[in-house]
């Protein structure tokens, strides 16, 4: 771009900002103002695993399958499927009326290209592709999976609600390498992305896609459909300050705040015209990741000693406050409501917390006062609270804690370092596992034992990997449950991470807004009265 273009760009942008007509003045009740917990910085749901991009993805894109309120998988873009050849061939037929936002119909080849791109990066997608011999478009309407071995979870993978979203986009965009972002946002979902009005870091705008044809039948909740857009326009206003977001809701300047600060919930509840409701019933599980490469946490006995003194109640109160309905202690590897959750081995977390015994165990394991580098994010409230309680716990155990306060961006890089502690390495850090991710082993990264090929922390455990494989191949629910008990026992033995309890983040919204679906922030069927 040359200088003249620069000036032109500035002039055009300013003019657009100055004179763009505001729809909101005309029909206030047709516009829904929402405060997300982060900005949709990346618009390609395959390029990133950020939750906010997943939520954005479910506005704009559609998926082949969806989940209902009972976590049952349901057809969404597909009319139905036929399974043949003893479970080795799946024929998925697209339903009628599917159309992209650029006016083109959704064809089977778009689906094939989109699934290929997604499966190249997604964990569950890779599992599916490993079992797939050939994926092809038999006609404009029919997608065929020819499998090497039966894969009963195929619809679950293609409708997964966790990141990365198996979104369907036009073939021309889906041909983009998965390491590059697709910046042209063309989906076939009920809302259209308004690129012109986007202000990076401040505002994202969606408009109702008039040509969207919802499924027939009554609402089943979540992503199961039918996905009906009842408002003309949805604006996502990013507010960096949590107190400001609550203030804006109180003053009626916005309609819906995705996750207000837990401490402000009593105040919001007491206000007329504001409702507080737990939408995302699966919550978030706190996780303390341990680095298995360096002392002291390369020693399993020390890891188990730390596990033995973790008091989930303390962590959860620090994160979510004293109201016990906002959190749960006694949480194992899987989300408590999930069929995969069990009591196997839970006594290590639920028994009395004995610091003296813990100290003795650490001394016996040969701890020599090596430093424990704890990475704590300064700009991420929930994780900072966990890090502070964690540092306190480790100190009381007699470990030599080096508390390093960093911004989240730095931690995201530092945690990938396998170097020793004096060269930028680390010993432990804190993350959150979304309750949906911990629902079953499919996307449960924390419980993997892949070593160098796995996530930061690099725990090695053949048992954990074998148990996950057993789950993928289990023929029925009982088999899946048994595999998950193995995983939980394995986690308590190897300690790749320590679960810190589960906390809920209710949403707050004006009483004029109703019919908000359960789950992460979704706008299907949401209505707003004047």
């Amino acid at each position: 771009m040359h200088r003249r273009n620069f000036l032109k760009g500035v002039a055009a942008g300013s003019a657009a900002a100055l004179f763009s007509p505001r729809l909101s003045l005309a029909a206030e009740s047709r516009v829904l103002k929402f405060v997300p917990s982060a900005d949709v910085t990346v618009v390609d749901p395959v390029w990133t695993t950020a939750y906010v991009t997943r939520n954005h993805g479910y506005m704009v894109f559609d998926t082949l399958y969806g989940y209902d309120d009972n976590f049952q998988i349901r057809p969404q873009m597909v009319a139905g499927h036929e399974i043949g050849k003893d479970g080795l061939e799946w024929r998925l037929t697209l339903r009628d009326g599917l159309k992209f936002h650029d006016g083109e119909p959704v064809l089977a080849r778009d689906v094939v290209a989109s699934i290929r791109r997604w499966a190249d990066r997604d964990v569950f997608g890779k599992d599916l592709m490993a079992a797939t011999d050939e994926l092809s478009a038999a006609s404009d309407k029919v997608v065929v999976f020819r499998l090497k071995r039966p894969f009963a979870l195929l619809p679950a993978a293609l409708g997964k609600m966790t990141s990365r979203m198996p979104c369907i986009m036009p073939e021309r965009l889906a041909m983009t390498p998965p390491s590059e972002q697709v910046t042209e946002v063309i989906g076939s979902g009920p809302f259209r992305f308004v690129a012109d009005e986007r202000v990076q870091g401040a505002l994202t705008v969606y408009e109702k896609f008039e040509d969207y044809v919802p499924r027939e039948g009554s609402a089943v909740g979540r992503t199961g459909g039918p996905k009906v857009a009842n408002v003309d326009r949805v604006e996502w206003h990013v507010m960096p300050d949590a107190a400001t977001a609550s203030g804006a809701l109180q003053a009626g300047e916005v309609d819906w705040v995705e996750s207000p600060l837990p401490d402000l919930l009593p105040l919001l509840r007491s206000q007329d015209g504001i409702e507080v409701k737990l939408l995302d019933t699966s919550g978030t599980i706190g996780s303390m990741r341990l680095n298995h490469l360096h002392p002291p946490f390369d020693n399993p006995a020390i890891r188990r000693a730390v596990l033995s003194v973790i008091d989930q109640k303390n962590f959860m109160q620090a994160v979510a406050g004293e109201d016990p309905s906002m959190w749960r202690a006694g949480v194992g590897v899987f989300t408590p409501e999930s069929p995969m959750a069990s009591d196997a081995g839970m006594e290590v977390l639920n028994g009395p917390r004995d610091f003296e015994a813990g100290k003795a165990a650490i001394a016996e394991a040969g701890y020599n006062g090596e430093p424990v580098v704890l990475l704590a994010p300064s700009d991420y409230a929930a994780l900072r609270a966990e890090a502070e309680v964690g540092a306190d716990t480790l100190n009381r155990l007699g470990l030599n804690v080096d508390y390093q306060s960093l911004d989240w961006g730095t931690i995201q890089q530092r945690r990938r370092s396998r170097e020793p502690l004096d060269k930028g390495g680390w010993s432990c850090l804190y993350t959150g596992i979304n309750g949906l991710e911990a629902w079953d082993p499919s996307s449960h990264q924390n419980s993997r034992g892949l070593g160098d090929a796995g996530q930061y922390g690099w725990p090695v455990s053949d048992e954990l990997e074998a148990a996950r494989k057993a789950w993928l191949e289990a023929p029925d629910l009982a088999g899946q449950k048994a595999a998950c008990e193995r995983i939980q026992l394995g986690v308590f033995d190897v300690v790749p991470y320590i679960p810190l309890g589960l906390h809920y983040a209710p949403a707050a919204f004006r009483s004029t807004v109703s019919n908000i679906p359960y789950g992460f922030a979704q706008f299907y069927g949401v209505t707003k009265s004047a």
Partner: protein
Amino acid sequence: MPATTLAATERPDLFVVRRRRSGVLGFLIGNPRITIGGGMLALVVLMAICAPLLATHDPLSLAPWLRARFPSAEHWFGTDMLGRDIYSRVIYGARVSLTVGISVAVLTSVVGLFIGLIAGYLRWADGILMRVMDGLMAIPSILLAVALMALTRGSMVNVIIAVTIADIPRMCRLVRGVVLSAREQPYVEAAVATGTRTHVIIRRHILPNTLAPMIVQATYICASAMIVEAILSFIGAGTPPTTPSWGNIMAEGRALWQIKPFIVFFPAVFLSVTVLAVNLLGDGLRDLLDPRAATRT
């Protein structure tokens, strides 16, 4: 925040007849700003030194089951989001604010004096040095601090370095200005003409002239550094929570401002009073040391 060359507090002598006083008491009565400012500052310093005696709790001990409690007989200023005693944290926090304020003031003075002297004395170095100073001055200190935190980690030392880098150009410009004007003075020209050595001229003639405005400037820099420390905590680039500071107590409690105002209120009062004291002291010193300062902007 720039510690600008601020107003003197001198009065038009037409209407005020000053009685000469002598002795320490006389000095104190004659310079109320120094007395009040210095007195308040002395109290804060005393509080910082005696923090272990004054505190009622360990400022670091967590009690998540006692979080965000209103002030009570047990917790005089209430407790914060992790159940730590705010009174004890505020008392210990004085150490951070004072350390940051004083370190920045001393460091900028030393470095600013050194660079300013060179720039003022060596013509060929002047251009380069002042361009670098202009460049540094153009980078907002908040951005610098966030970048430094990313470079290493959040710590008091980083806050001090970031604020110092941003304030050095101001001090440097001040010193350079004084040196340039001093060089024009007849007695300095005479000294140069008689072949007096440069370092002697600097020591005898230049330094005494720069000292007064520098002390005054340093007090304002000290005050502004304390405020910047608080603002850095607000954007997450300040001292880590394991080092209690007024800034990070306020930053942590700010979201609860509507329902638990005391978390922000107590550290804010202490910070404001301390900054006020340093500013008053600066005004008073200016009165005393540099009565002509008002004409120099």
